[in-house]
């Protein structure tokens, strides 16, 4: 339960106007810091939902697939340059960003991850790795501004952020493929 409180505190902290303003002033911090932290806040808060409404999760997300699909759709949506622009231009979209990334992305991720099988987990990790690499190349190579609110250089920095994240995920995949965990644990 403590975790849920920490999640809520993190969510409130991220929603404070000076904090949100600071993070959104840099494209890379907006997408690679604020958004993952919102997902993390939902991930932590999920414990409360799981304890308080067990039937709801059981009925709705019995095998974990609906939850992981919802997580993937919301996460991919917020990678669109246009979505970032809208969050900065319209307060309604900004509110939707906070609610969707925490409640519709972080929470279902927590509930689904232990329920889905090895193949689905691998698909999610490999899928997002490829997506990050693709997005990275797009942001690095694109010769024009993709977001109205951020200059080209910010976009390139974000692209490298995506590429380095994809690189870390590749290391993670290699580590998993080539390390026999059963030999150690």
């Amino acid at each position: 339960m403590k975790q849920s409180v920490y999640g809520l505190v993190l969510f409130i902290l991220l929603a404070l106007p000076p904090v949100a303003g600071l993070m959104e002033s840099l494209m890379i911090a907006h997408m690679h810091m604020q958004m993952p932290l919102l997902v993390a806040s939902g991930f932590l808060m999920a414990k409360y939902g799981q304890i308080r409404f067990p039937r709801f999760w059981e009925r709705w997300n019995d095998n974990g697939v609906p939850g992981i699909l919802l997580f993937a759709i919301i996460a991919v949506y917020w990678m669109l340059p246009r979505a970032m622009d809208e969050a900065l231009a319209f307060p309604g979209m900004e509110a939707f960003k906070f609610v969707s990334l925490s409640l519709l992305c972080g929470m279902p991720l927590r509930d689904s991850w232990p329920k889905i099988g090895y193949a689905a987990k691998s698909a999610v990790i490999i899928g997002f790795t490829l997506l990050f690499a693709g997005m990275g190349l797009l942001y690095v190579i694109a010769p024009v501004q993709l977001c109205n609110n951020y200059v080209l250089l910010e976009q390139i920095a974000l692209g490298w952020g995506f590429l380095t994240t994809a690189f870390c995920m590749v290391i993670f995949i290699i580590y998993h493929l080539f390390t026999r965990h059963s030999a150690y644990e």
Partner: protein
Amino acid sequence: MNKLLGAQPKDAALSRTYLFVAFAALLLGGIMGLLQATERAGLFEMPSWFTYYQALTTHGIVLVVVLTAFFTIGYFYAALSHTLGGLLPKVRKMAWIGFALKIIGFVFVVIPVVMNKATVMYTFYPPMKASPYFYIGLVFIVLGVWMCAFGAFVQVATWRKNNRGQHLPILSFFATGVFVLLFFGSLGVTVEVLTLIPWAFGWTKTVNVMVSRTLFWSFGHTLVNIWYLTAVSAWYVVVPKVIGGRRFSDVLTRFVIIALVITNIPGGFHHQIIDPGMSQSLKFMHVFMSLVIGIPSMMTAYAMFSVFERRGRELGGKGLLGWFKKMPWGDVRFLAPFIAMVAFIPGGAGGIVQTTNQLNQVVHNTLWVVGHFHLTVGTSVILTFFGISYWLIPFVSKRVLTPRINKLGVIQTIFWTIGMLIMTVSMHISGLLGAPRRTSYTTYGDHAVAASWDPYTILVVIGAAFLLVGGALQLYAAYYLMFRAPKGHTEFPLAEAEENASATPYWTERWGRTIIVMLLLVAMAYVAPLVNFIANAPPGSPPFVTW
């Protein structure tokens, strides 16, 4: 087995050699320190064949790199050997190869410094250009450190295979964290040095100064925290045993190590907080990333004083602070690390000052900064290392700590503390008054402001004299314990976990994941400034020899 027989002879010889080099470095670095302080105060003029800046460069390299690196590796290899059932022959070989590579590297580094061809301070900021052989020496040093890091990884992985599902003994867990940081933390500086070598040879014309500085500090700050983590390992594991108590929560200890490993490298940018070329908001973000390190530090402070209080009350200490009197103040193995911990309170507070953009503008490049790292490294870290040496050297030399040397250690600790207190306070104050660091004696045309620093620079010399006495006593103690003390068995003091401790979750052992999270955080911290420095790069700087 190890508990009964003491150190394994071949492993002990390895650690002993590393410790010997560390203390030889203390002797050389200490003399350089006193020479600088006297020149800086205007009491003595360094000869033209060995200038103030050469002494400063030697002091930095010998103490900041040699003393700390050799002590850390010697200490943790002794810990790996003791807690994991002896070093594997190939691991021992790797550590010896690492030793040889580092020594070769230091020879390459020191010769240009002595020849006045690499008077670039230990930070070797371009566009100041050293002899290319200086940078080649640095490559050898890094290779030597990597060899030791990989040796430690092989040792730990083998132990885990043979002890499936068990938690790594806590001191080896600390060692793993330190070697992970040593390897990943030095990647940035390696890239930097590999760009500086062709530039120093004249094969490339210019260098991107901002990128070099950033790569340097991604390592420089990590190195600082490696020393800190090494000292902290003794605080958590050894000091409780010395006072007869038990360790603080195992879960918290492992969490602190993981948190320090993950959050360390991104903290480096605050060393450049008033550098140009970065937006204010990005700097603000980096302030947060740097200050995160404060969280595990606060946990450590709480944990340590909790252990002291619990033990003091067990020994009959009453009232709010009665437990304090029950501590073994006459035991140098406790006294030295205790003073080190206390010094970290103002040291850490000073660090927060320097991490903050506005406050840094007041103290940047002043003697304040020098005072700060003499308090953190020179006191918190080094006094802990001294405290460790009073049981580690006898342990690896199969000798015992005599009451006479213990007493000498207490006196030495007092000398060191008084010296550092006088020196660091004076440095902090004169820094606030504007005295610059890394500057030899000058009156600035008899300017009144410069004259106001004089009393403090004299106090720095007095402090340095105390330190020299303390250092000499420490060297004598190290020599005596290594070669002259009575033969016998010395225990490797490892405190037991607390009674009725909650089980430590197994995720703490998954170093692969910890490293991935660390790399992600490093990417978050460094991608934006590096892209900025490269995409908006200035024309680049040709080399300068300013001395």
